[in-house]
């Protein structure tokens, strides 16, 4: 009896020790989505202005899926963690799991070397400055309604759009050296990733490597150095037609802050840098280099939480930074819902505002060597983010409040112009850009003292592009409005409205594989898009909810009315995060 007791005790102690030495914990996400779409409009109507009615394409579609992302995290010691996210997904229409698939959505090892260097290997999220490595937002939506934000968050999750970082595969390491006097710390980080695998024929391996050195002198002064190199690995293929691409960006940034009487926080900040680009084939070599600078100043009055800021930037026409200039969305992609309209099957439906925050298919997850084509109604002034080449001018704004406050609001004005005219050799050859955007979010419940949430949001974005010679006159206006009302505990009524109108003409640049402009496409538009949505949401917890929405989408082309169409959608979603 005594021996049995000892055996059980030792066994129990051993098992407890094993568990404590190796911790395994789980997290994950489960989601179910059902959509039902209905297509209408003059584009289909036999009595429309279009003499050939659409008899080829469906008017209704139903779709959806259930998925479960299980995150397994194993921490065998305090210095190492291995994590994986395993996805099981079943599209609706599959029966008893038919059509299900299993895939690894994420694999990562991370840890600490010698308590000094943190590292990550595998699927990692990386970001630096807006001019070096940055995944900029596809379109202004700071004050869009919650009902649309739910849809956008799904698309962002599916495409690994976590903040402004790029999801890459490779290695990242960082460390910080702390000092006792003079300098607070120096942070060093470096990464190496592969963005394209060779096809062993005519496409070499393409790598993105880089790093940062940041010096924090104190809370008043910081300076940093950033470097990114995006290049093809020469000789990873033996092919006479291979093009060897190489792009390097080096920048320095700084920030000086100072508080006046503990009430006014001022800051002087900026970034300056240059890029070098070369692209060689057997017969051709193209090389360009250029520079940029972006200097700003801000002042924040702390008691009222009001901040004013202004900056001036110059980005040269040949400034090339693919990891900062790559777009998240293919403006000329093929949407998943009703991809074609019209009997002419070569006329695919271009993605509209509705597709941009609901459709996974048109999202881009990889860094592109060249500047991607874009449509100006969605972003005419900075289609490639802050690092958009060939821009100079002033940006200024004012903001107040914050996320946890009763209100938050801001207005930002852009007054920019081109550095060099595009294709136009005359005195009035530069485009002028004017942009204004802003909005407000108001938690009415906090003002009137309600327990339940009542939030109003409203935003706008206006853009205008003009040029005298080879005349351009293009403007677009985006409006956002929304309301979320918690009518009973954890149960919200939601409504939202979006409107995008665009009118005018532009000339879209056609670029070759060397990023040089080789032609132009005249572009004309006079169209508006409206999205109206109503829905309800029951929140089981902060990240677990069930939502039902109805959306009414309208596309009106004022010039070619036979292109007009409507999409009505019913959308159900259950999301669980644990």
């Amino acid at each position, binding site marked *: 009896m005594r021996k049995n007791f000892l055996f059980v005790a030792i066994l129990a102690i051993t098992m407890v020790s094993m568990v404590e030495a190796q911790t395994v914990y789980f997290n994950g996400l489960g989601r179910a989505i059902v959509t039902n779409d209905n297509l209408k409009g003059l584009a289909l109507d036999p009595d429309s202005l279009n003499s050939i009615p659409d008899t080829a394409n469906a008017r209704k579609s139903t779709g959806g899926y259930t998925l479960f992302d299980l995150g397994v995290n194993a921490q065998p010691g305090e210095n190492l963690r291995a994590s994986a996210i395993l996805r099981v997904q079943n599209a609706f229409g599959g029966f008893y799991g038919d059509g299900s698939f299993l895939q690894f959505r994420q694999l990562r090892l991370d840890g600490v070397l010698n308590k000094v260097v943190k590292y990550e290997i595998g699927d990692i999220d990386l970001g630096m400055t807006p001019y070096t490595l940055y995944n900029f937002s596809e379109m202004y939506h700071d004050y869009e309604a919650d009902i649309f934000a739910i849809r956008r968050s799904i698309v962002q999750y599916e495409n690994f759009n976590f903040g402004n970082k790029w999801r890459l595969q490779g290695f990242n390491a960082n460390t910080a050296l702390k000092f006792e006097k003079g300098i607070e710390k120096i942070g060093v980080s470096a990464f190496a990733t592969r963005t394209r695998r060779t096809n062993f024929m005519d496409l070499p391996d393409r790598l993105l490597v880089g790093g940062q050195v940041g010096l924090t002198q104190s809370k*008043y002064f910081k300076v940093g150095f950033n470097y990114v190199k995006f290049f093809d690995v020469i000789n990873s293929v033996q092919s006479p037609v291979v093009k060897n691409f190489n792009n390097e960006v080096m920048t320095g940034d700084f920030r000086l802050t*100072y508080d006046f009487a503990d009430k006014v926080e001022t800051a002087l900040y900026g970034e300056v840098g240059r890029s070098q680009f070369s692209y060689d084939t*057997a017969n051709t070599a193209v090389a360009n280099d250029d*520079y940029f600078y972006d200097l700003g100043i801000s002042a924040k009055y702390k008691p009222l939480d009001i901040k004013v800021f202004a900056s001036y930037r110059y980005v040269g*026409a040949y400034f090339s930074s693919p990891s900062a200039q790559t777009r998240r969305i293919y403006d000329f992609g093929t949407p998943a819902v009703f991809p074609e309209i019209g009997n002419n099957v070569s006329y695919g439906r271009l993605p509209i505002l509705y597709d941009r925050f609901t459709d996974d298919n048109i999202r881009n997850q990889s860094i592109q060597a060249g500047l991607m084509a874009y449509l100006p109604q969605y972003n005419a002034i900075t289609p490639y983010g802050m690092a958009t080449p060939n821009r100079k001018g002033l940006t200024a704004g004012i903001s107040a409040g914050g996320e946890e406050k009763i209100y938050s609001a801001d207005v930002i004005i852009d007054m920019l112009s081109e*550095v*060099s005219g595009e294709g136009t050799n005359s005195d009035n050859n530069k485009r002028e850009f004017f942009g204004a955007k802003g909005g407000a979010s108001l938690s009415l419940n906090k003002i009137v003292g309600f327990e339940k949430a009542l939030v109003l949001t409203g935003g706008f974005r206006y853009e205008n592009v003009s040029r005298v010679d080879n005349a351009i006159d293009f403007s677009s206006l985006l409006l956002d409005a929304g309301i979320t009302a918690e009518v009973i505990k954890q149960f919200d009524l939601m409504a939202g409205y979006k409107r995008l109108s665009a009118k005018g003409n532009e000339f879209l640049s056609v670029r070759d594989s060397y990023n040089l402009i*080789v032609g132009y496409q*005249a572009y004309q538009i006079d169209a508006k898009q409206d999205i109206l949505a109503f829905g309800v949401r029951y929140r089981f917890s902060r990240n677990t909810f069930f939502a039902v929405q109805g959306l009414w989408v309208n596309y009106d082309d004022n010039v070619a009315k036979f292109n007009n169409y409507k999409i009505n959608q019913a959308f159900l979603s259950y999301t669980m995060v644990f």
Partner: protein
Amino acid sequence: MKPNKFLIIRGTSISTGFLGFLFLTVSFFFSACKKPEHFVGKEYKEASSDLSVLYFEADASINNGIDFTTDSVSVNGELSERVTWYVTFRGLSSGAVKKIDGLSQIIDPSEAKWGGDHDPSTLRFFQPGEQVVAELTFLNSSVVRRDTFSIKKIKKFKGDVLFNGFENALGYYSWGNNYLFFNETDPLSNPANPMTFVMDNKLFVEGKQSLSIEGADNDNTYFIGGARTFMPDGGSKYINFQSLNPDSVYFNAYIYGFANYPNTRVSIGVAEDDNTNGIFQPASEDVWEFAVKINWTGWRLVSVKYSDFATSASRENGGSGNKRKELDRIKQITFNILADPAGNKASYLVDFPIITYGEPFDPTK
């Protein structure tokens, strides 16, 4: 003296050395910066609403059709203003397209010429005997003018076309100063694996047909078979090339991949008569191969230098030669079909195989 607030931070001063470092760093960034250009990109000018075409013609001297082996099409025109113009040549049978553009008021025939090549983006080659429409258009204008003519003979691209481009596949065809043989009833085949090859007149890039090769790797050996062109045995006749330098000789072909045949590998095999006895002996002589897994759908131009070919993996079939690339003793050139992974069906099309010298095939030249 009261310290300057902006330079004294937490009781320490920013050293002048550090400021000097910052100054040098910033100076470095701007040191080699050039003055921005007045404009970037290709210059263009859009048409005004008053634009008119005073005259437009695609070579009035063409009566019986243009012979691109000796001549080129010249475009002649006069406009009411200096404007960006485009002339698009479109083959009405082939669908091939060639676009030229300019910025001028006079379309100068000495500069606006077309030598019979095509835009690579459309893949298709122009065909002999087909009608071509030359269409004059302008940036941001609906003004259009057209002229038509026919092609008597298509452009002869630099290089030597193998298999006669699969247009007249059976029997002998000219090759430089020689004649090569291609017998579609005598393929190179693995007896265990069924293989068919036929001419396909629905999917092609050049001419009116391509070669379709299809088979199944029933014996799990990867190799299914191939189509070969060769010099007959005996004598001292070899497939002659314009260069004997393996770094200068390029094998090019358009390969079509099918989405429903994802396990297809194509290889180009070149058999050498190492001992120059007039006969290729597979057990003791070289076969040099270049193989590529077809991981695309549609047509794709594949180009490879002879120096990048690898020795055959089979010791019994071309893997036991002298291991030297000798272009002066080539007996056979083969398009093979393999399964990858083994044991699968495979299929692809091949069109316009051409040997070029000095550079890969460029359809714009």
